[in-house]
């Protein structure tokens, strides 16, 4: 990659800005509430953009473009089905309990609503997951910097081995995120997430514009690709007739309900941004404001993947993750997507059916290299780095809060002063980053173990929304019901995964490890969605049964925690367009129009 001084100046300007914002905000952090919850003082539009940006990590930008190249516009279901309905639900129906209960975290809400053991289970599993997610984001960024050869000229000039690039990338990103969170806490993270949001948009709009202009607009793109790649609902009646390999019920119930509501409605990483809002109304509007740009993000991150696959294959400006020759890469490329190359033979890798394994993760990097001259290339690269860092910072701020409030204060050192917990929050930030670095290195050495951990996290997350749904909308739900519902839901997810297998996959991490294979799914995405459905249903049923057999809380203790016992937030003082319900109606109308137009 031929970066020049202007590219470096833009990148350095970004790094100076994020550190400067942290330094300026340091003087405003005086209490643990300031550090962990931004003093609950931020307006809705800032919390809304941070709510969106904290989710814009590596998996989002790189991963969604990769899915766009692999599956086409059907990837937009991860937004239009798999995010927006849940964001509307959490804004309208769940924020009143999160914000109104004055809980400082999602696990703390579980303690108030259920009991200590349910909070402990959620807090510990969440803390471990955030550290690993942050580490994986760090690992992905360092790998990308290696693949794009960003630092190669500098290392060559200094006569340092290029193998050090990975280590420098990890350490530099860790230090930058550490410093700005340490200085300004959640406010610093949120302010930087807003800056990162605008940078990501600024870096990707010209990329999409140039790409679309090159292929002849949406009409030209549609002519160059199979019909199912440009119509999101085409062939969804059967798993065999659409690129995702998922039927409509699996998509709507598995992705659109269980997984998306489980993430957007219960994950403290995003809910924390809404909890930082300056009023109940602002907290409710936070996810709704985030839903507007979120609806249009497929055009920024999925469309480059479609364009990359529609372009004629060319050897120019192609990055590859392995050392294949340019001729080999060009010969087997699909558009700008190169095949994965066997490092030993220099030949393309083939799957079990003898088909080429394409390196879809390089869709965005290769689009940047293909269209951006020096100057704006620095901006595009900064946008990529910003997405990685916002994902990292989001995980670290969620980790330090859950660690301090839900683990340290609850089980290790209760009854300490506020200054002590503020100090512990900063210490937790340091060891959260240190653990993330260790996780990033673990990903390089133990790839299969990391895959296994991701799988276990999926089992733990799948039943979560059933617990919250019953907790918030059924006053009879008890702590024992919630705890054992979560455990059996997780076990059900593991058992379902162990007894099923995606077609053409070997027994092992993809499933079938419990012995008899009771069902073969048309794709691993279908298996994931149905695993989530089984986990959620098991948790829902077990929670109800055990709750009916155990003693519920007194109703007086559930005020502010359960829908039927809580006064509804008044919106009469607001103008009609500022009311959460009105925002939700507008979002639903736009969402329907998008699905009709691209359906």
């Amino acid at each position, binding site marked *: 990659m031929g970066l020049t001084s202007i590219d470096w100046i833009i990148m350095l*300007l970004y790094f100076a800005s994020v550190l400067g914002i942290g330094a300026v905000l340091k003087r405003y952090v005086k209490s643990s509430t300031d550090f962990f919850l931004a003093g609950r003082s*931020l307006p809705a539009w*800032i919390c809304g953009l941070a709510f969106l940006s904290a989710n814009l990590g590596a998996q989002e930008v790189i991963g969604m473009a990769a899915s766009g190249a692999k599956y086409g516009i059907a990837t937009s279901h991860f937004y239009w089905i798999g995010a927006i309905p849940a964001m509307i639900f959490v804004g309208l129906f769940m924020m009143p309990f999160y914000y109104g209960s004055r809980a400082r975290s999602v696990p703390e809400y579980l303690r108030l609503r259920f009991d200590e053991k349910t909070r402990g289970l959620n807090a510990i599993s969440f803390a471990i997951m955030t550290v690993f997610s942050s580490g994986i984001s760090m690992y992905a960024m360092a790998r990308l910097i290696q693949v794009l050869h960003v630092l190669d000229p500098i290392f060559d000039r200094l006569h340092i081995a290029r193998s050090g690039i990975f280590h420098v990338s990890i350490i530099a990103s860790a230090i930058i995120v550490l410093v700005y969170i340490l200085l300004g806490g959640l406010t610093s993270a949120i302010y930087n997430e807003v800056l990162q949001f605008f940078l990501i948009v600024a870096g990707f709009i010209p990329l999409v514009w140039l790409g679309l202009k090159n292929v002849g607009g949406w009409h030209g793109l549609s002519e160059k690709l199979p019909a199912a790649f440009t119509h999101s609902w085409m062939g969804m009646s059967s798993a065999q007739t659409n690129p995702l390999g998922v039927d409509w019920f699996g998509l709507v119930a598995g992705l659109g309900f269980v997984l998306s509501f489980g993430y957007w409605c219960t994950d403290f990483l995003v809910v924390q941004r809404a909890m930082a809002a300056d009023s109940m109304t602002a907290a409710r509007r936070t996810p709704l404001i985030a839903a507007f740009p979120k609806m249009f993000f497929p055009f920024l991150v999925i469309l480059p993947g479609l364009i990359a696959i529609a372009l004629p294959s060319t050897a120019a400006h192609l990055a590859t993750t392995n050392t294949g020759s340019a001729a080999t890469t060009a010969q087997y490329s699909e558009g700008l997507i190169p095949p994965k190359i066997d490092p030993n033979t220099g030949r393309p890798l083939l799957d079990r059916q003898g088909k080429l394994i394409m390196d879809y993760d390089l869709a965005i990097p290769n689009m940047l290299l*293909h269209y951006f001259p020096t100057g*704006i290339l620095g901006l595009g690269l900064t946008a990529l780095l910003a997405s990685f860092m916002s994902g990292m910072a989001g995980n670290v701020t969620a980790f330090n809060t859950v660690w301090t409030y839900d683990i340290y204060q609850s089980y290790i050192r209760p009854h300490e002063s506020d200054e002590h917990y503020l100090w512990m929050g900063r210490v937790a930030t340091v060891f959260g980053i240190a653990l993330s670095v260790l996780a990033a290195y673990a990903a390089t050495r133990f790839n299969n173990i990391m895959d296994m951990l991701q799988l276990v996290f999926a089992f733990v997350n799948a039943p979560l929304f059933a617990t919250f749904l019953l907790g918030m909308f059924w006053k009879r739900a008890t702590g024992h019901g919630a705890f054992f519902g979560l455990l059996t839901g997780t076990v059900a997810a593991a058992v379902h995964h162990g007894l099923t297998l995606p077609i053409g996959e070997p027994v092992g991490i993809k499933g079938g490890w419990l012995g008899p294979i009771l069902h073969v799914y048309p794709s691993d995405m279908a298996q994931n969605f149905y695993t989530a459905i089984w986990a959620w249903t098991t948790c829902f049923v077990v929670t109800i049964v055990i709750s009916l057999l155990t003693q519920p809380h007194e109703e007086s203790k559930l005020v502010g925690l359960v829908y039927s016992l809580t006064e509804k937030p008044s919106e009469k003082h607001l103008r009609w367009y500022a009311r959460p319900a009105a925002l939700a109606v507008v979002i639903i109308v736009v969402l329907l129009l998008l699905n009709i137009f691209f359906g």
Partner: protein
Amino acid sequence: GIDIRLPIGLVFSLVGILLTAFGVASNSAIYQRSLGINVNLYWGLVLLAFGILMVVLGRRGMRPSGSSK
């Protein structure tokens, strides 16, 4: 505190000035890959305009009568 629009506006104004200046000064040959369009110049001007708008809004928000923090 500070109004976040102010630092965002400053960053975008600086990036806009850099890209615009580079777009004016650079050789047109480098724009072959961007379909012959001087994308640095045009996008630099857009970012500069956005940056100035954010600075104005941020300064208004920082006034005692006006903040996002």
